[in-house]
């Protein structure tokens, strides 16, 4: 299916961010169509399309929506997740900038399908420019009665607010995000209960990524059947691949799932700087496991294919490292990131990330010990699976994969000269013999 070349989320139409232009290009038609369907029918279409979440975990979107209670005495919420804190990930902001109404329309459809009264768009605080752009788009949509009371004259009403984050990666984790909106510390919640039962302010809530929601109008307009055939059938659609690192043309490329990693690097991103060889690739944002340069031939970029390489599609943020890269330094930088961003709530991640950073820094300083390699691995293993949220796993995975795939790099950095161990008593304890 890699012959699919259409750009669905970011079509090359000038000024598409402008609501009139968007409308001229069949904008808000999907919403109109949906308002004549039953909410359940909408969920069914999304289920049939096989749309998977773009926030990192690839969770089936229609299924997630169906967890929301049909009847609820409490209000229901949708949180659109635009925190985009994952290193190597910078795709949602493209949507805010170039096609904000697609996202707004998708959110409205999803709100209609789940009976949501309020949509919060959680955007990382540093995205000031994009917050302003989206706010403008929301205001325009309000003015045209797409959002607000009695949308397009129907009985469906929903509000939409932007909530700027305060600069913590952890607030992109869905339960932390809800605490943050509630005005609390960004601490992830213990699950269960799941957000669909007990979410924002204890009310039924669904959290979806910006890109996920932006796919919805396309599915409604052109049918689940059509959508489900784009790219890899088990993970259909196009992805906004954000590629960075040692490539000539870093940026965001919209391509169908299942596209060859080598095509993305060489055909779209212009190949590697100075034509060097590739040492390693991180396929889906900093939390995904690494692939060695020698392995990348034939790697297809979708959730299924990447399983074979013991990694995952994550957010689709590809980081390419050429042959001159010091992988230990890169790993040290990543560990530093997770150490710095760990919320500190649960023991293994809070303590383990700091410990891992201390060990890796010892290698960087050339002071590492051979035993430290397995110690580092063991600390990562002790974090993985034992934490409140997935940040712990995200911190452990790169470490595990780099040790597995680049052990020799660690061994090279082990301290050569043994530390001389000799006991010298402090002066006041040196007693002259009589």
């Amino acid at each position, binding site marked *: 299916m890699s012959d699919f070349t259409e750009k669905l989320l970011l079509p090359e139409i000038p000024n598409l961010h402008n609501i009139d232009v968007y409308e001229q290009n069949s904008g808000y038609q999907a919403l109109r169509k949906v308002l004549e369907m039953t909410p359940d029918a909408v969920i069914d279409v999304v289920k049939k399309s096989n749309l998977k979440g773009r926030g990192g975990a690839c969770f089936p979107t229609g299924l997630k929506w169906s967890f929301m209670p049909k009847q609820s005495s409490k209000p229901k919420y949708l949180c659109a997740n635009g925190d985009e804190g994952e290193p190597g990930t910078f795709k949602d902001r493209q949507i805010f900038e170039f096609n904000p109404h697609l996202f707004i329309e998708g959110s409205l459809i999803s709100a209609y399908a789940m009976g949501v009264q309020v949509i919060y768009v959680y955007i990382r605080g540093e995205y000031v420019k994009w917050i302003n752009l989206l706010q403008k788009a929301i205001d325009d949509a309000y003015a045209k009665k797409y959002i607000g009371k009695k949308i397009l004259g129907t009985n469906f009403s929903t509000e939409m607010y932007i909530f700027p984050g305060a600069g913590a990666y952890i607030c992109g984790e869905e339960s932390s995000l809800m605490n943050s909106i509630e005005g609390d510390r960004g601490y992830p919640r213990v699950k269960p209960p799941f957000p669909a039962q007990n979410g924002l302010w204890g009310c039924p809530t669904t959290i979806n990524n910006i890109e996920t929601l932006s796919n919805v109008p396309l599915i409604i307009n052109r049918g689940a059947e059509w959508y489900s055939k784009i790219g890899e059938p088990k993970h259909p659609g196009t992805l906004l691949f954000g590629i960075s690192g040692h490539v000539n043309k870093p940026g965001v490329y919209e391509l169908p799932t299942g596209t060859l990693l080598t095509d993305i690097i060489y055909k779209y991103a212009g190949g590697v700087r100075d034509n060097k060889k590739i040492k390693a690739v991180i396929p889906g944002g900093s939390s995904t496991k690494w692939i060695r340069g020698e392995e990348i031939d034939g790697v297809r970029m979708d959730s299924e294919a990447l399983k074979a390489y013991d990694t995952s599609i994550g957010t689709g943020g590809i980081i390419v490292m050429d042959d001159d890269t010091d992988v230990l330094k890169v790993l040290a930088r990543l560990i530093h990131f997770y150490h710095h961003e*760990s919320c*500190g709530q*649960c023991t293994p991640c809070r*303590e383990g*990330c*700091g*410990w891992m950073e201390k060990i890796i820094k010892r290698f960087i300083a050339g002071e590492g010990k051979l035993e430290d390699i397995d110690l580092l691995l063991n600390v990562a293993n*002790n974090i993985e699976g034992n*934490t*409140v949220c997935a940040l712990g796993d995200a911190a452990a995975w790169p470490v595990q994969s780099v040790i597995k795939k680049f052990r020799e790099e660690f061994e090279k950095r082990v301290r050569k000269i043994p530390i001389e161990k000799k006991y010298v008593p402090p002066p006041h304890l040196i007693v002259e013999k009589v």
Partner: protein
Amino acid sequence: MVKITIDGKQYEVENNLTIIQAARESKIHIPHFCWHPKLTVSGNCRVCLVEVEKMPKLVIACSTQVADGMIVHTNSEKVIKAQNAVLEFILINHPLDCPICDEAGECKLQDYAYKYSVGESRFEFDKVRKPKRVELGPNVMLDTERCIMCSRCIRFCDEIAKKPQLTFTQRGDHVELTTFPGECLDNPYSMNVIDLCPVGALTSRDFRFKARVWEMSSTDTICVGCSRGCNIKMWVRNNEILRLTPRMNPQVNDYWMCDYGRLNTFKHVNAANRIKAPMIRKEGKLVEVGWDEAIAKVSSELKAYKKPEIAAIGSAFSSNEDNYLFVKLMGILGVKKLDIMPHIKTGDQDELLIREDKTPNMVGTREVGVKPDSNEFGFSSIMNDIRHGKVRALYVLDDDIAADPNIAEALIKIDFLVVHASNENETVKLADVVLASSSYAEKHGTFTNFQGKVQRNRPAVATLDHDRILDGMELSRLDKFGSHNDRWTQGIKRDTRATWRIVNMLATAIGIRWRYNTCEEVFNEIAAAIPAFKGLSYLKIGTNGALLNLKKKSVTVKD
């Protein structure tokens, strides 16, 4: 009910329980720091990880609900490995200052480090440094480095004290406990966070560095700060009370007590103004005398007055037994003017524990009969009678009634004033005879709280009347193994007696033949004589108390 298997044994448990609760009910201990039976689940310490068959990962026992057919392993290899890992993680940044830490000896981390960790660390770096000695509030000190971020204290303030004053700031291993801007930890229950803190991060500014916990004895008793009667442990070293801590009683105080009770109900016991022996006023001055002389004096003086000229004030600070014998003696002497002085602090009451009635035994004192037959014998009538010279002799049980200046003024008119007192006070200043009574910490007795719950207090401090070893009081290691050259085995023992015993001595001097050898015997008589106490005994009261048989529900039981 559902059937679950824990470590190979089947149990039938309620289906709304979590694994940790179900295990607890079946007497299986799953280690935990952040979980507490009365706080919401935070699930953050991760030491309660257990293995549940068919679940892909280990799960935390504190938040995982039981389900029918669930098979749980709390000590499989995987679980032990996870426990080892979590303890190693907690210890990498925890100071190893047990030798100077107040918590040592009652520290959850210390205990778990012995039980669930491998016993050595692979951590070879500098620990994270954080502020030491942070005054969180008037009563609580924080050592930020010792904090293991379990969040129990924060949840206590939010959920129980209902005063959100604490929070975490920073992230990762730099997280610090602190108060909200402009707040300090000064809620009336703030010191419970010290007991809740599983390590030595939160310490009592009153108690810290006073003793190692194993040097003290701890006695199960009750607080006398108000009519709640919180169940407490009284900690004593060298015959001196050093601290009080709450003792769990789900019907009275759960796991909590208020700061007022914790700090203000024991210091008088060892205060310098203790009355060490009976005293008689001679040539205008109170001088110490022997018990026989003091009792003889009271007995002969009382005979000199006509019955209506004598009035008696019982005490809601004294036990049921004290008041019962007092009423009985006054009955025999024909004294009708008999009441107590109320101590109500209007408005000083809340939803959790604190009660307006600042006496520990108002209900019991009334039930054993300290109540005037009619209004003309009530407290204010008695005071009026004193002002008008109608009452000339007054007998006051342990209560500083002259602390009220109006009453002090009236008492000047009294010809003969006898008081029971443990400490010097305004009433003592006016007394003709002072009978040195034991404080609540030095005697047996029962108190009846506002719910009608009869609860025992036990002697924790020895007197010449109560010997620590012979009378089976709680012992510390120093009490057991200390020798005479040990500076912590030689605390003062005073010549004070329990009020009921003093009353008994007086009765004997008057010629009444009573044979009460122990407080328990007095109680048994109360149980036989007074319907509300029917069927009660010290055994039945036990450590958690027993309710009076009150026909009308005079009080509402609040949990």
